[in-house]
């Protein structure tokens, strides 16, 4: 059932998330994950999630109250990769003067928001874990990913390829790394001790970037 929110910026959301984690456990550790490609270059937009393996009861997810925003701006999705916990609402505000028609055919959550312009926001609830590939029926080059995880411990790598996960209750975890261009899977088990600040460097193999590039403005795409 779609609900309509005013959009709120992502960093606020992250703080909120961190705060929740901090308050829930007493003995906690930190993990720094560095994702690099086979050439040793830092990988941006990699999703890092830690799934507790020993907990008797599943960790509470605490989805945010305000919907997470994936906007359409300049005929592109922003951001390209978003990670949320199961049960999070995501809104797709159109900041352009033209219309978009956002959809996904992914099994995690097939949906379509019929052609819409600016000013209206529709939010969608993502209630199952998985990868949601997002597209626009009007603009072939528009592409984005929403990663829905079943853990409160997740983070997206920044430009330096680093994701810091703090306030982790001590225990065994499965470390999952996902990236739109990831070849195969990347997961490993690790133990987080209290007041620990372990650094995990993960090397991933990335497939070539095959995104459709928007035609440059003006004439002359050329003969193909």
């Amino acid at each position: 059932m779609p609900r309509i929110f005013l959009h709120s910026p992502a960093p606020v959301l992250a703080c909120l998330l961190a705060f929740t984690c901090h308050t829930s456990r007493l003995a906690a550790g930190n993990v720094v994950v560095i994702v690099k490609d086979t050439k040793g270059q830092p990988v941006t937009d990699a999703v890092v999630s830690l799934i507790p393996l020993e907990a008797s009861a599943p960790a509470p997810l605490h989805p945010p109250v305000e919907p997470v925003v994936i906007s359409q701006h300049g005929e592109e999705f922003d951001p390209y990769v978003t990670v949320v916990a199961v049960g999070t609402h995501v809104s797709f505000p159109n900041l352009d003067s033209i219309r978009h028609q956002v959809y996904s055919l992914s099994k995690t959550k097939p949906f379509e928001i019929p052609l819409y312009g600016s000013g209206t926001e529709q939010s969608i609830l993502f209630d199952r874990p998985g990868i949601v590939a997002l597209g626009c029926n009007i603009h072939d080059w528009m592409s984005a990913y929403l990663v829905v995880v079943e853990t409160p411990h997740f983070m997206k790598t920044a430009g330096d390829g680093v994701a810091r996960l703090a306030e982790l209750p001590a225990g065994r975890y499965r470390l999952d790394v996902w990236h739109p261009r990831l070849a195969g899977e990347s997961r490993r088990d690790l133990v987080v001790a209290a007041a620990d600040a372990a650094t995990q460097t993960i090397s991933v193999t990335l497939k070539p970037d095959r995104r459709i590039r928007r035609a440059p403005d003006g004439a002359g795409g050329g003969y193909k």
Partner: protein
Amino acid sequence: MPPTALAVVTSDATTRHPGLTVIPHALRFRRFSLRVLTLLLGLLFATLMATYVVVSSANDSNARDHARANLELAARIVQSAIRQRLDFLASSASVMAGDDALKQVLRTGDNRTLASLLQSYTQRVGAPVIALYDADGQPLASSEPGMDDENTGPFRSLIRTALGKDLAESSGFAYLRNKLHVLIVVPLYAPHPNIFGWFGLAFPIDRAFAEKIKDTTHVELTYLSLDSPQQPHLLATTLGQAAIPTVVNAAAIANQARADHLPRPATEIIDLPDDRYVTLTWFQAMLGANPVALVLQRPLSPELAPARELENSLLLTALAAFAVATLLALVIARGVSQPVRQLAAHTQTIAAGDYATRITLDRADELGQLADAMNSMSAGLAERDQVRDLLDKNVSPEVAAQLMRDGAALGGEEREVTILFADLRGFTTLSEKLPPPELLALLNRYLDRMSGAIEAHGGVIDKFIGDAIMALFGAPVTQDAPADRALAAALEMERALVSLNAELATEGRPPLAIGVGVNTARVVAGNIGSHRRLNYSVIGDGVNVAARLQSETRKPEYGANIITSAATLAACRRLAESGLPVSAFSFRPLGYAQVKGRAEPVEIYAVS
């Protein structure tokens, strides 16, 4: 034998006299063989060169034809490529028409979103330009922002054509943003057959297109705008920068010819910096503009490469044939000139008088025949020489020469001659005193001296009759002043006898004495005798008179050793009167002598 060489040889043979030294001959024969050689090789060379030229030019025109066929094929491939692309765009348009997103956008009437959707389509279809027009041809949206009326004009013109002719599509060439494009309009049915609007799609004819055609056809493509016909400007080309001005000029000329409806060759050859190009120029009609020129070109040298290979092997074969022919010609020329030189050398031998040497050429051809003929000639000459030799001893050289010249024919002629008779006096007495060999030696010695005196004055010994001599002056060879010569000879004989007598005196022998009679008369001269044996002689009364005058010298009362007749005196006088130089003789009249068989006596004179 080639006619020129023959002419040269005959002229040489006729104008030059044989009997020169050996060296020039040898040189000339060497030159002759050289001429034959040069001529043969020249002919062969000319033939080979002609073959080469014919083959080469056939190859050339073949290559041009082949290039032209390729160019025409390339032109059809250009058309076909464009047609395929248009077909693809037309079917793409019908797929686009079925896109639900398009229908949703069209329902909103939001033309800006429509424009961005068309941009998506340009990527899906690979057509750089997609525009949408309403059913009346009014522009709704275009993938190209800011397509003004000038640029949408060609699409609208195509829509009008399609509407007017009720066509399912319409296409043509036009400039979009000053660049050459192929355009197509396809109806947007919603639903079929209701026309909601028109898709206008276009793709550029640019360098990439030209290169693509070149990849498959290996033909250089150049598109030129003829908007200003005198100065075509380049739209797209596969050629390098250096070649462009030449091609532009050629296109301007071709366009002028087209505009003037002049006949144009199917292809022409244009020299570009890197090669010669067979060039085919087509003119493509445009929507609302002057046509564009499509220049298709193919370099000639790759086309000629296999032919050049053939020509090279032909050239090699020709050179080999030439070399073999040179060797053969040398051998043949040597085979001819060697025996000819031998024959020439042999001619020298014969000319030098050696008739005994024979030439041997072991050949059955004309040269062999010539050698045989020369041998026969040598034999003939040797025989003649022998005859001449014998003749010289038996008859006087003059008679022999006349016989050699006129042949020994019977017959005669009447002519005036002076006859000299000389007789040795007291020979009978002498013959009794001396033994025969000594006698004959003395006689021959005497006759030799007398003959010498007679011949010294041009007289001809007619015959020796024992110790007597008969000599003729003025026969058989006509000579000047025969009478004068005869008298001079008689006086010479007297002097010769004086010197002979002086010799005889030292030998203790008695002196000899002679009597000489000289008469001038008309006699019959000719060869006298049988077919087997002939003598040149004279007969007639005058001969008897001369003999009679000789016997008159025996009369002591005359006191004369030399007696001549009035006829001889008259002949001497005629000579003196004619003004010719004459010898000085003194004539002493002795009166008249009676000659046997003659009625009238002869007036006689003693000569000294």
